[in-house]
């Protein structure tokens, strides 16, 4: 759709947010090597400082012109929002992980790997060349595999292995797709591909294979299998990270592909995937008693909703704001819900009985986050969902809007299954609450409300 050719240049300053983040991570790694274990937190702070610096730089970069740098890295609203959302949520994840990782023998590694995942994710969202996309995929995936098995216990190792094996298969399919498209379009650059790709079944096959890899990162059908297993098996902080951060970049990359390359029958492909993803995620979430698995399926269904504006890429101008707004709102809200799990430290729904009595504010925050995931005003996801449905209608995919609406209604059931016990009488002693994690919850919840209420402002900036 963006027929206007962007300005091109090769100025490292355009990558300042990424460079600052990378610098912080490397410096953190070096710091971690030379400080004793009791003071590894300094390395964590260095990493966080790098992310914060990157966030500030990214915020300043928003007002810059739309341009392509180093022939493969687009600087446009999609990239800006990806940068801000990824770095912002990463900062919150670092804050969330700070206390649980204190004194861990690989404390520094955790923070550095988290930052690397974030960097890979940003590259994923900004890439406009298939080879860079593949590299970004690997950069985003490999640190995440390591993080999934970070605890080195049985469940962690199992989830890390499943994560890795799924990633390996779909990465392979993705490379196959890239090869196919390169052969058909004689280039890996989006710009050239958009011009030269023919319209035939082979391109469709290539596109689907390419998309498969990104669906793995987004946690969408048919590459969603890892999500519940990793969310349940790895540590809660890592579960927060892998269900939140990679999705942002993957969806941005998918949108970019649809918007800039626009292969034949893109909308139908993604619409089918979206339908399957949201429906399966919602249905599978119904019977879950484990809140992490419940949230995992919830993230799958949310990926389905998020794929709706991706499917509408190039069909309506509403698609881009819808995706960017929804993805930011989703990231914050999902992070808030997972952060409650981190704060409480229990996984069964029944463990949450009477939480409202022990920690009313935390319970209220959880309710706001869960209602937010349903899409209740005045939370941010509500606005995202409205835009998403609007995009589907405007893109003449009314059945997709209907499917999304029906799924939304159905999703109320399992979110409420978690809300109700919060306000019922506790049988035993309600769980203790971690204060630092609770602070992250409050901050995140406040942000989702502020984003929802300030949606007019947020949209007008777009």
């Amino acid at each position: 759709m963006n027929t206007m050719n962007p300005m091109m240049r090769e100025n490292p300053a355009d990558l300042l947010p990424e460079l600052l983040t990378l610098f912080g991570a490397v410096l953190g790694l070096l710091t971690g090597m030379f400080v004793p274990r009791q003071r590894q937190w300094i390395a964590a702070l260095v990493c966080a400082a790098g992310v914060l610096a990157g966030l500030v730089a990214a915020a300043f970069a928003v007002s810059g012109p739309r341009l392509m740098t180093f022939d493969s890295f687009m600087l446009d609203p999609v990239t800006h929002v990806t940068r801000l959302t990824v770095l912002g949520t990463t900062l919150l994840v670092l804050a969330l992980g700070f206390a649980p990782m204190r004194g861990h023998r690989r404390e520094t590694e955790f923070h550095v790997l988290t930052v690397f995942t974030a960097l890979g994710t940003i590259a994923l969202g900004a890439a406009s060349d298939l080879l860079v996309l593949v590299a970004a995929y690997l950069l985003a995936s490999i640190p995440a595999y390591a993080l999934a098995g970070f605890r080195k216990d049985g469940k962690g190792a199992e989830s890390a292995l499943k994560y890795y094996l799924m990633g390996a298969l779909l990465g392979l399919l993705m490379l196959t797709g890239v090869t196919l498209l390169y052969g058909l379009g004689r280039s890996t650059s989006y710009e050239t591909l958009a011009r030269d790709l023919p319209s035939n079944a082979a391109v469709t096959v290539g596109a689907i294979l390419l998309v498969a890899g990104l669906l793995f990162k987004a946690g969408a059908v048919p590459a969603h299998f890892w999500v519940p297993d990793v969310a349940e098996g790895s540590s809660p902080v890592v579960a927060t990270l892998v269900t939140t951060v990679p999705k942002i970049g993957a969806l941005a990359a998918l949108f970019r592909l649809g918007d800039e390359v626009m292969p034949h029958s893109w909308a139908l492909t993604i619409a089918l995937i979206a339908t399957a993803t949201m429906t399966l995620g919602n249905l599978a979430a119904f019977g879950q008693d484990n809140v992490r698995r419940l949230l995992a399926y919830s993230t799958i269904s949310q990926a389905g909703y998020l794929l709706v504006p991706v499917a509408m890429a190039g069909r309506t101008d509403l698609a881009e704001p819808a995706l960017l707004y929804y993805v930011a709102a989703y990231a914050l809200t999902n992070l808030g819900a997972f952060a409650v799990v981190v704060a409480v430290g229990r996984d069964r729904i029944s463990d949450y009985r009477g939480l409202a009595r022990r920690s009313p504010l935390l319970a209220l925050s959880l309710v706001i986050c869960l209602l937010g995931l349903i899409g209740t005003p005045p939370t941010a996801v509500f606005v995202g969902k409205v835009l998403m449905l609007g995009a589907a209608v405007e893109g003449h995919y009314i059945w997709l809007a209907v499917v999304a609406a029906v799924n939304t209604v159905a999703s109320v059931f399992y979110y409420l299954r978690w809300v109700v016990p919060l306000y019922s009488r506790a049988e035993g002693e309600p769980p203790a609450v971690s204060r630092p994690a609770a602070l992250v919850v409050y901050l995140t919840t406040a942000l989702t409300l502020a984003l929802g209420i300030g949606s007019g402002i947020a949209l007008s900036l777009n």
Partner: protein
Amino acid sequence: MSAIAWALPALPLVVGALLLLAGRRADRGAPILGVAAGLGTLGLAVAAAVARPDVTFPLFAGLPAGMAVDGLSAVLVVTVASAALAVLVFAAGDIGPDEARARFFGLMLVFAAAMLVTVTATDLAVLLMAWEVMGAMSYALIGFWWHDDERVESANVAFLTTRAGDLGLYFAAGCAVAGTHSLSLDALPDAASPWRDLVAAGVVLAALGKSAQLPFSFWLSRAMAGPSPVSALLHSATMVAAGAYLLLRVHPLLESTGWAETLVAWAGALTALVMGAVAVAQRDLKQLLAASTVAQIGFMVLAAGVGSVAGGTAQLVAHAAVKCLLFLGAGAFLTALGTKDLSELHGAARRYRLVGVTFGVGALALAGLPPLSIWATKDTILASTPGSLYAVGLAGGVLAAAYSVKMIVAVWHPQDALTRDDAEQPGTRHVGLAEKLPMPVLAAVGVGFGIVALPGVLGPWQKLLGASGEHGPTALELVISGGLAVLVAAVVASRRVRVPRLAVAENWLYLGQAADRLVARPVLALANALAWFDDRVLDGAVRAVAAGGRAAATVTSRRVELPTDGLVDGLGRAVRRLAALARRPQTGQVHTYYAQAAVLLVVLTLVVVLVG
């Protein structure tokens, strides 16, 4: 100046209200306070009559209200205040210490205050308020001994009858606003044609009801159930006088319509005649006096009808004094001797000389004997009256002579073997100073007020009332009426002619029964029918709707709810099954994941390639 206009009704109103609020705690001081307030009110009334204050104040948007004292009002306020004072002084002696004196004096003062506002009001809104308060006070006073059901019943009859007439005043007020865009009494004759007639009709109805003219007369008979001082005030200067006053006040309106004057004149003349006959037939002193009041008020109404404002007003004042005196006398007899039956009162006047003499003087004045007051005032009215009406009025005067002398004969006849004391209630055998005090004064007024009809005085009197140019009585007329009165009085006194006993007249023409049969019962029957309609039809419909709703709900719950519920349940079960199915792919085994992902991607590719 305007302060007097406010203070005049405010003084009795406030003192009366305070007495009512204080209740029985104030019983001891109530007579003193009441008489003091009466004195003060009389002083204010005189001051107002001299100063002629005039106030207007906003009451409704665009409809200024006001009170003013003009010539007519000046006469009326002094009359009302004087009569009220006389009655209050009498009541201080008559209403015993064991009665609820605070309530009595409070009600009397508010009653008088309402009358004072009525006669000073310059617009229908203020008039109506005072008019209503007066009606309510009369109800409370007639039913003063509320332990007695019959007295309360009488109060109800009086209240309902006057209220029925009062509706006319509301009607008139509404039509006045429609016709003149104001409520001012002065503006009424200027109302547009249909409105003017409607206003006149409403006012006439209200006035006739309040003044107990035909056909409303019966309520005054029932009003005798109240204490004697109440009757004295109610019959002299308040309540019944209010109707006559109103008609005199709106005489220009009656004149402007063309028909109202005639109607009012005939209503008054016929009432004077017929109720005179009723009075002659009465054997109870207070009932006789009540009927005579109606008859005498009839002359005032006749005056309003023929445009003799000066005569009517003079008649009002003279009658107020005389009737007040007579009721006080009757009350004194009743209290002392325990009876008001004319045949049981033989010798009463001889036993209580002062009461007897003043009562006799009052009765002679009422008889229209020359040179006493009513002889002159009545003739002033009749002077303006044309032929046939004159004859009717003259006949009414003759009857007045008959019933008046009948009373005198009854109380001055020597006590005989058949006379029994305490026939109705235990008497005190005592007439106190307070009771005697007002009587000579009232008697003097009753004797002398006829002076206004004299040629030299009539002119200024007419000028005072703004009624200059009205006819005064000619010598011939005076001689004829005086001669007739003397003749009839002599005949009755000689007791040669036996007055035939007429059941119709004795029973007040069966007006009360007629009202009961023709108005009260049909209204009750209609009310019962409407109540039946409400209970059976309206309420039944409501109940039927409710029952129908329940029936529909039952049907719904059996026929619709179950399938719907089943549908919902079925949906729930289906979703549950689907949810279980959705968890099946999550085997936890990577090789099945691989297979599923591969198959799904192949299917997706096929679908997109084939469909897209």
